[in-house]
């Protein structure tokens, strides 16, 4: 498989829109054409070749040197692989529908928002609105997988419809806000107001929480589905270890009843 590498020439002078650097868009181009592509930089544009040293051959894989000012990395990705050595800025992998985006560092705001398919892996921490909804959209994530090894900010999985989000570390407030369906796994400590307004879907975590008053306590349950889920996770790459081993018994809450919801919070023992 051919790999195309982008190495930063120096520190960035502003925020860059890196959304054009998608493997399937670049595969047809020669290196010189790629170097001439304009990238948005603040109010103006800058050529790819002015920011990056290019090497390798255009194909299925793009390797990027990361920077927290590179925004929209992998946004709209439909196939192929992007590997980022280092952090990325905001909205990495927003609206992606296929392929794989691997971020070895941290991700900024709204990573994987409105995602429809594919796989987003963040080895560092993720910011607010991970796998959430873009402003104005009635649905957030509608498919695919987001696997975060570190912690994440507020409102992870907002308005989620389908798919899986697994977070190895702690989450901020309002995880799974207005969730409609899908699964959210939290390996660390869940933040406040978890599941507010959820109508359906499943949130799994460990430890004690004090759920919102809209959640009805259904007591301790033995849930065979947990081992099926764990079995499924064992077949996937890069699942945070803290999200594994969810078998056996769980305390279950149903809600958010304030919104007529039947979603579940599962505190796994």
């Amino acid at each position: 498989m051919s790999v195309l590498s982008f190495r930063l020439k120096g520190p960035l002078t502003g925020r860059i829109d890196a959304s054009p650097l998608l493997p399937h868009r670049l595969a047809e181009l020669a290196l010189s054409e790629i170097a001439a592509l304009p990238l948005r930089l603040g109010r103006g544009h800058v050529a790819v070749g002015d920011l990056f040293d290019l090497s390798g051959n255009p194909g299925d894989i793009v390797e990027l040197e990361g920077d927290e000012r590179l925004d929209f990395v992998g946004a709209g990705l439909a196939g192929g692989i992007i590997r980022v050595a280092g952090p990325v800025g905001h909205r990495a992998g927003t609206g992606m529908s296929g392929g794989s985006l691997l971020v070895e560092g941290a991700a900024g705001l709204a990573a994987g928002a409105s995602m429809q398919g594919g796989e987003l892996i963040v080895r560092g921490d993720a910011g607010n609105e991970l796998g959430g909804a873009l402003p104005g959209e009635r649905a957030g994530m509608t498919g695919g997988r987001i696997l975060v090894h570190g912690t994440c900010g507020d409102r992870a999985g907002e308005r989620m419809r389908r798919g899986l989000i697994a977070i190895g570390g702690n989450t901020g407030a309002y995880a799974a806000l207005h969730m409609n369906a899908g699964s959210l796994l939290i390996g660390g400590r869940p933040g406040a107001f978890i599941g507010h307004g959820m109508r359906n879907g499943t949130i799994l975590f460990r430890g004690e929480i004090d759920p919102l008053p809209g959640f009805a306590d259904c007591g301790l349950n033995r849930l065979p589905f947990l081992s099926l889920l764990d079995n499924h996770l064992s077949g996937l790459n890069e699942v945070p270890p803290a999200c594994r081993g969810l078998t056996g018994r769980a305390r279950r809450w149903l809600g958010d009843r304030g919104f007529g919801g039947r979603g579940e919070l599962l505190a796994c023992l």
Partner: protein
Amino acid sequence: MSDAYTLLRGGRVCDPTVSTDGGGLRDLYLKDGRIAATPPQDARIGEVVDLDGRIVMAGAIDIHSHIGGGKVNLARLLLPEEHREHASGPDGLRRSGSGLFTPSSFVTGYRYAEMGYTAAFEPAMLPSNARHTHLELADVPIIDKGCYAVLGNDDFLLERLAAGATQSEVNDYVAWTLHATQAVGVKVVNPGGISAFKFNQRRLDLDEAHPHYGITPRRILTTLATSLSDLAVPHPLHIHCNNLGIPGNEAVTRDTIAALDGLPAHLTHLQFHSYGTEGDRRFSSAAAEIAEAVNRSPNISVDVGQIIFGQTITASADIMSQFRNSGLASPRKWVCTDIECDGGCGLVPFRYRDKAFVNALQWAIGLELFLLIEDPWRVYLTTDHPNGGPFTSYPHLIRLLMDRSFRNEQLARINPDVAAHSRLGSLEREYTLDEIAIMTRAGPARVLGLRDRGHLRPGAVADVVVYDDLPDREAMFAAPAWVFKNGRPVARNGRLTATGWGDTIVVRPEFDPAIERRLKPWFEDHQTVRLGNFRIADGEILDHGRGGLSIVPTLTASDPCF
């Protein structure tokens, strides 16, 4: 001021306000932002533009387009995805902007100018939102703009009417409002209905008493129409009739025309008010009946509010109809809100579908109205932007009116039941260029009292549009060869070449300032701002020379009555 003339040489001038001698080629001289009479032989000619027989018209005027103010801004907030998808960056000439059917203020001005429109009127400025509206319109570049103040559901007027106020007191209040809000006309939206909605009424007919104040829409309508006539305001009452969008509302529309009893009035987005209840679906076209009523009433002018298939958002002060339609929202989100207890506001995103019977029939009803109302001086081209569709669809609409075969092609594509339920297929009329010039320029200018706009006689503001005479009228009107605003070229082949600032058009009828003695305590007791802060000063519009004010003279006895 310069002493050089700009010469537009050899154009086919299409100005319906002057009798032409067979449409020969003419030269047009521009000087100091005005059209000039043919200068003496030795006059200095600066720039010469060879028009090579292209068609020349005055700048177009949009009489009814929601382009600024509270509800437009709410519409933008409701649909951020529209702005995400349609964004443009700055390019040295333009500022950045976004949006398609609720464009940001700068984009609004650029798109209008590129289409050859040089003036647009925001039809629903609630007095309590007036400052916001003017601030927003101050950021609409190039074009001239004006606003109609919305009255007729405000508690002050309703309470005074219920208490038996005299006509002259109402006149003073109307004139005071025009001054205080820097408006050019008065619009009444669902007279009494918006207020009645707050008392749990969901429908209000012309002679149905308001549940709290006990007065009827008929009384509100005739009082306001009489006011504007007494005050000699050129633009007559701008009426959004009761029961918008309800099948069978044609009766209330015809009753409204009858109730006016010869008083001048403008009925807006008439398409939404021309529905019958015949047929299996209890929804039919009453365009023929309404058009006949309009044809018989020379005191009435109308704009159509044509719908265009596709996604848009309906934005209206008519909270009664918007709340009723909120279940039809697509995408499924909507806003209805009260504004300062003085009016209402409803925003319902909507997608007009050509395969849906109701939407397709609405499309046909609009076109029937255009084609059945005989006098182009009294029917104006609008889509009630953004309610029927964005103003950028005007070129498409012009082609529908001018090209019968194109129209019938479109008719064949939409829901097949519509052709059977509508007379549209049998209507042979095709608008001529002269008639288009009337309905988009001279007509609106006349009904708004803009004496120096909408025509190309010497003395007129030099808003000039030059079109290539293309057989495809949509392409022709979408990208004029040249657009001049105040004598300066601003667009070439449909692309902006320069930018600038237009005037705010206002009207200032005389009135007795004693009305403020009644208004002052009202403001102190019920409003969020005091009377003195409510009034918009000229300086706020002029903004150190960035904006301009253009005052429309009131009518005099020598003016031909509308």
